[in-house]
């Protein structure tokens, strides 16, 4: 891996340059009267129809997680890695149920973030702060996973061969600088537009890989056969089998809770909420939940690349030579199976597939900080221009935070970065989703339940060593809990809910003030155009939040509506 493949690298650079150019041009797409407005920079005018919403949601939900982390887990442990497919099967029916309610109430009251909703619903700045801080924290390891994915491609390309720390990480830093640049200028418009290119590349790459690679490896029977033989062998490091080809009953709990926990957590992430809120209507959201599973199919097929990698002796040797870094399995598979130019296309799909979501995530986390922490606690009189400036800079800080996660956490299984984020973000589920249906839970009970679950989940995750390396930390996201190995996030959520319910009963009994609720039952089911309503944040509504945003949507949506019907 020491020599650089010039053809692959050139193809990658050309495709990357195209995406970058489109990203910068996006600043002019659906041009708003006032770009420096959070509704514009952060939600692109809230006028996205079915087609764009599909690309946008798909763009931020299927990431390096899909192309690097999941196949790596399948490569190393077998069937256990397929929980990700089960998770993406479950997620859309679940989101179908509550996302329209969140959209409606957010549209009515001009909420841009989940924490906005919590503040309005419970009249609690403390709970809103908890939700905002959790969202920012949980997004960082998820962005870190994208960095690890890019790093894997650059390593296989031979760009990261230097032992010098700074030079080794230079390509990574460069890619992120470009990403940061266009995100900074264009806001949500950049990733929404580049998502088209990204998805086209990914679908082409996956279809070719699934049809072509098995013919090079002796067919599916041989691939599955090799995998099942290898997984049954004993791993000298742990003294147990490498994995299981079909989940054994002891692993079923972990499989099911990882899938369910991930599914419940996904749409708690600020970037996923952003994708929902940027859409035009409840029907757009529901329609999308029916067509987004196309991405799940891609995920399932990509997971199988892990087995293909196992069936290729060259890939197995390459992974071993790189210190058993299973993350390299898919890029190495491309290198060994495809002609150089198409391997370059595959690399580009992975790299761009990591960059686009990272942009969306950092924008969403930045919006959270600005609206729910900066304006709320530090500078209540910041105008919309000022707010957008702050968001732009914070989006850079969030990316820097992600870099810290890359350097400090073990990367044996990058999927643990996403699962660690899941442990945290899932703890906002009671406040947000239960809050969409009932105001019964008390705001302080929710705060305490959240805190208990965050501490429990973090401590338990900290205690998990990497397999075969006792004494290490954050090595796994599952733990043995009451006799079953399960996803820590789900156990923490149970604690969260129990504490919240019990304390709500107590607080109601002692008549602790429950706080004001500014939402009305009808707000959760409405399709209506929002009334221009002044929210407590000056500027958010003052610069004409609903009015111009709606108008932008109307002009821009004409084309989108025509293409989708």
């Amino acid at each position: 891996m020491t020599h650089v493949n010039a053809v692959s690298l050139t193809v990658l650079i050309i495709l990357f340059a195209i995406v970058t150019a489109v990203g910068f041009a996006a600043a002019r797409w659906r041009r708003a009267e006032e770009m420096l407005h959070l509704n514009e920079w952060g939600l692109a005018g809230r006028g996205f129809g079915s087609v764009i919403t599909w690309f946008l949601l798909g763009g931020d939900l299927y990431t390096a997680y899909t192309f690097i982390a999941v196949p790596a887990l399948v490569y190393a442990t077998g069937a256990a890695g397929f929980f990700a497919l089960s998770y993406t099967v479950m997620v859309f029916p679940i989101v179908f149920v509550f996302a329209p309610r969140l959209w409606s109430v957010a549209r009515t009251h001009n909420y841009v973030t989940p924490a906005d909703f919590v503040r309005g619903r419970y009249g609690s700045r403390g709970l809103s702060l908890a939700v905002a801080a959790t969202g920012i924290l949980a997004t960082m390891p998820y962005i870190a996973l994208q960095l690890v994915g890019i790093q894997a491609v650059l390593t296989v390309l031979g760009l990261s061969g230097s032992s010098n720390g700074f030079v080794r990480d230079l390509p990574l830093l460069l890619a992120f600088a470009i990403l940061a640049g266009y995100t900074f200028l264009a806001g949500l418009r950049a990733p929404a537009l580049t998502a088209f290119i990204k998805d086209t590349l990914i679908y082409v790459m996956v279809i070719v890989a699934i049809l072509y690679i098995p013919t090079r490896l002796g067919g599916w029977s041989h691939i599955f056969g090799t995998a099942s033989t290898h997984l049954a062998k004993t791993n000298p490091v742990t003294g147990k089998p490498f994995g299981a080809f079909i989940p054994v009953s002891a692993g079923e709990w972990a499989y099911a809770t990882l899938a369910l926990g991930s599914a419940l957590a996904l749409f708690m992430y600020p970037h996923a909420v952003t994708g929902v809120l940027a859409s035009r209507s409840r029907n757009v959201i529901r329609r999308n939940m029916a067509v987004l599973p196309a991405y799940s199919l891609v995920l399932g097929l990509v997971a199988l690349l892990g087995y293909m990698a196992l069936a290729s002796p060259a890939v197995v040797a390459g992974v071993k030579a790189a210190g058993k870094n299973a993350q390299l399995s898919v890029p190495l598979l491309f290198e060994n199976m495809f002609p150089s130019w198409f391997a370059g296309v595959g690399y580009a799909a992975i790299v761009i597939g990591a960059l686009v979501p990272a942009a969306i995530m950092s924008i969403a986390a930045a919006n959270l900080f600005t609206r729910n922490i900066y304006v709320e606690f530090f500078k209540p009189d910041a105008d919309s221009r000022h707010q957008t400036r702050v968001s732009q800079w914070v989006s850079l800080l969030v990316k820097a935070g992600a870099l810290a996660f890359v350097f400090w956490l073990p990367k044996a299984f990058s999927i643990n970065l996403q699962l660690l984020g899941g442990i945290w973000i899932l703890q906002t589920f009671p406040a947000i989703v239960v809050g969409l249906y009932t105001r019964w839970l008390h705001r302080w009970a929710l705060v305490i339940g959240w805190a208990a679950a965050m501490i429990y989940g973090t401590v338990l995750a900290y205690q998990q060593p990497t397999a075969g390396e006792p004494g290490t930390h954050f090595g796994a996201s599952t733990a043995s809990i009451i006799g079953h190995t399960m996803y820590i996030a789900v156990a923490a959520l149970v604690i969260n809910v129990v504490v919240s319910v019990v304390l709500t009963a107590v607080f109601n009994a002692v008549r602790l003030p429950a706080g004001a609720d500014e939402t009305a039952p009808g707000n959760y089911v409405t399709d209506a155009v929002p009334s221009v309503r002044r929210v407590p944040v000056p500027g958010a509504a003052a610069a004409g939040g609903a009015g111009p945003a709606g108008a932008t949507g109307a002009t821009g949506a004409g084309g989108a509506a025509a293409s989708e019907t």
Partner: protein
Amino acid sequence: MSSPPRTARKSPLAVVIAGVLLLAAVIAAFWVPLYARSTPKLGAFPFFYWYQLILVPVVAIVSWLAYLLLRSDSSAVAADQPAPPAAPHAAAPGTEDGPGAAR
């Protein structure tokens, strides 16, 4: 999906059917013992793998049925002709469910 009394545009039956369909889809993926086995095979694919892959289009169809059941007429119009700035509503926050009530 709940259907609060204020917007009576969807029949309770439709809501119940949609709910059952969606719940069944989630359980089909969550209940691992249901599919953690290698037979019957489909071609070279063990049951565990092809079951989950086939579940994807099945769930897509289920979600589409649920969408058709719960689709609201007023927003079907709104989806195609977005956002006429609704002057009547602007003056009166809290009447956002007006279209539903008018029906």
